[in-house]
């Protein structure tokens, strides 16, 4: 797969100016209108989410979904915090996201370093085994992991979520780091070797510092998935104290299916805010790294 993807695309895609023609053609106009429509479809549901979270319940129930809220209230947020320990959910999600990311980055770099930089006789086979993980669906691990965890007492712990989240993200991480390591010039290593640096020092002094951009990309992309992970948390977490955000949100569905919608939407707004902020601040790093990683392949 990797060889098939190799192309001569330059490393850093940069927006370039189109030559000449400043006039707006009919084509451009249509293109812009289309973009505008698609953007509204992408963003409106979000805006609606925020608007709903400040509506009163009766305003929501009588609901014209397009109307601006006829009243503004923060009660929903008060209720959202009363009904559920949102702070704890966010903390748990943070612990899981950071723990899994640490493993994904560290082990991903080590694996890629062994496969790409050090190299060994059966590296192609090992790489192939890792690549299977990209296409294997996570659901296959649910039942076996559940049994194994209950046997060794790992059920209902942070590790029970971190292990499969990191394990299933590892192949992609190795893949991205490998692609990046290919571009570190061999001369750098050779020079270091001449200075007497062994594989450990080279890893720490050359590979690691050079990889910062790729690390940011890997962390951000994985954070999106891990922060929002539902299936592992839903299967392995049993007690309230360990519930991550998606499970915390589920708690707003009360016995027999009763839902306090406006409070729920307030809770949703609270829980997406941390990731949204990080995302907006580091957005460039994501799009740079993702596109570079995938197109370089």
């Amino acid at each position, binding site marked *: 797969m990797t060889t098939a993807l190799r192309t001569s695309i330059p490393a850093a895609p940069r927006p370039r100016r189109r030559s000449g023609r400043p006039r707006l053609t009919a084509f451009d106009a249509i293109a812009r209108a289309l973009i505008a429509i698609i953007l509204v479809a992408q963003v409106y549901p979000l805006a609606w989410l925020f608007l709903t979270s400040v509506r009163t319940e009766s305003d929501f*129930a009588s609901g014209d979904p397009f109307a601006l809220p006829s009243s503004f209230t923060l009660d929903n947020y008060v209720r959202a915090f009363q*009904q559920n320990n949102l702070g704890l959910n966010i903390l748990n999600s943070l612990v899981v996201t950071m723990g899994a990311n640490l493993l994904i980055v560290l082990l991903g770099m080590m694996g890629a370093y062994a496969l790409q930089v050090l190299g060994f*006789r*059966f590296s192609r*086979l090992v790489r192939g085994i890792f690549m299977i993980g990209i296409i294997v669906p996570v659901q296959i691990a649910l039942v*076996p992991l*559940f*049994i*194994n*965890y*209950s*046997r060794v007492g790992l*059920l*209902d712990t942070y590790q029970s979520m971190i292990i499969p989240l990191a394990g299933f993200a590892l192949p992609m991480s190795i893949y991205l780091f490998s692609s990046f390591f290919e571009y570190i010039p061999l001369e750098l290593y050779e020079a270091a070797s001449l200075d007497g640096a062994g594989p450990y020092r080279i890893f720490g002094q050359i590979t690691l510092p050079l990889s910062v951009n790729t690390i940011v990309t890997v962390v951000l992309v994985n954070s999106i998935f891990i922060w929002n992970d539902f299936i592992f948390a*839903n*299967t392995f977490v*049993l*007690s*309230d104290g360990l519930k991550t955000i998606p499970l915390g949100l*589920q*708690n707003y*569905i*009360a*016995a*027999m*299916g*009763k*839902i*306090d*919608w406006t409070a729920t939407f307030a809770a949703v707004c609270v829980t997406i805010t941390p990731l949204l902020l990080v995302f907006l601040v580091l957005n460039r790093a994501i799009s740079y790294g993702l596109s570079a990683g995938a197109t370089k392949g």
Partner: protein
Amino acid sequence: MTKNWTLAVATAALAALTLAGCSGGGPTGDSGNIDPTGDIKPRQISWLLSRNSADPVVTTMQGIADEYAKAHPGFSLKLVTTPDRPSYIQKYETLAAANKLPELFDTDATPFAQNLAKQGRIIDEEKLLKDLGIYDSFRPNALDYQRFDDGSLYMIPLEYQAEYFWYNKALFEKAGISVPESLDDFPAMCTALTKAGVTPIAIDGADGWPLERYVSYQPFRVAGPDYIKQLKTGKSSLTEPAGQAMTNWLSDLGSAGCFQKGFSSKGYSDAQNLFTSGGAAVYNIGTWELSSLATTKLDASVRDDVDFFTLPMTDGSPTAANDFVVTSGIGVAVNSSTFDPLVKDFLKFALSKYYSTYAQSGALSPTKDVTTTIPADATPLYQKAIDSANSAGSDLVMPWDTQLDPTSNTTVQQDQVLLVQGDMSPDDFTKTVDDVITQNAPKYFK
């Protein structure tokens, strides 16, 4: 290397086999040992429950636990709530498989719970309640609801609820109809209401259980309470008159437009809002909603129009008119492997206080010897609902979701929607459900 790899795979597969191999043969316990020896050593005990944290059951129990903790430093009751019922059941069944059940946990008298009882993993409550001297204070209905088919009792009831058809008198008048006397009058009632521009019945179709109640009504009236017990084990079938009455009735309800359009994706709150805002004429729900339906919290525009009727009869029914849906809610099972003097002492303390305190919150107690305190903001309907519940007969309409094995129950809950929506014929429904029960019941009820 290739050789090594093959070896590694083989070893791993072997390890997998052994792991899987030793995972069977779950632990066994002793249900009957209700006199654990030793001292009362205070510690934390957990209760896995499927109720809202604001539910009076929970707040009452929490208050009692706090009181107990004062006399027993080091004791605490940890509440683990999963209000959403399907998620709860999944959680509790997986915990059981992992042998990680806490000291107390909620469960209905399901086939799964019965398997736990057979393995001795939960305490025999008939023995325990008799030992504590409170067995005779319970309403027989409340205990019967918790019993397995063989009559054994392994769960403690904490509630008593009656389920009624709440209806809007003004909307009935507008459509020129009166309260249906027979279940078979429902389609005509719906047609009249639809003609008058009113949604006949508000139902929470997103959660399977409310519609599954409708599934249970006709068979109960036509053939009595035993039919479902026969059906679920495969000894009877939906091709019997009772089953056919049900499938045809549901199909008729659907074609008469009884339920609001798109009901299958409408949740609990949506259905209740539809009724309490005067948008729908009938709403089938239990006394746990009394505080929303029979107090001044109910919107003033419909407050005086709301009334209720109990489950209508059918012609020639072997059941009595006052046999309608009364349940004692999801019960509490006590884990036998963690049952020690502390758990027993706490239960003794808690159950001696619980029922009277609970009744003061305006709820019905599963015991006979306490009266419900009517809240200050109640409308006259509140007392009427309580009185009606107290007069319920002794034949119980068992909700089917507590009776069928999980696979068959999933099928009924999914296909009942198709039947009502007209996407599946009564014959197909009959065949599908019968097939699923035939396939799954033998494994469950062996």
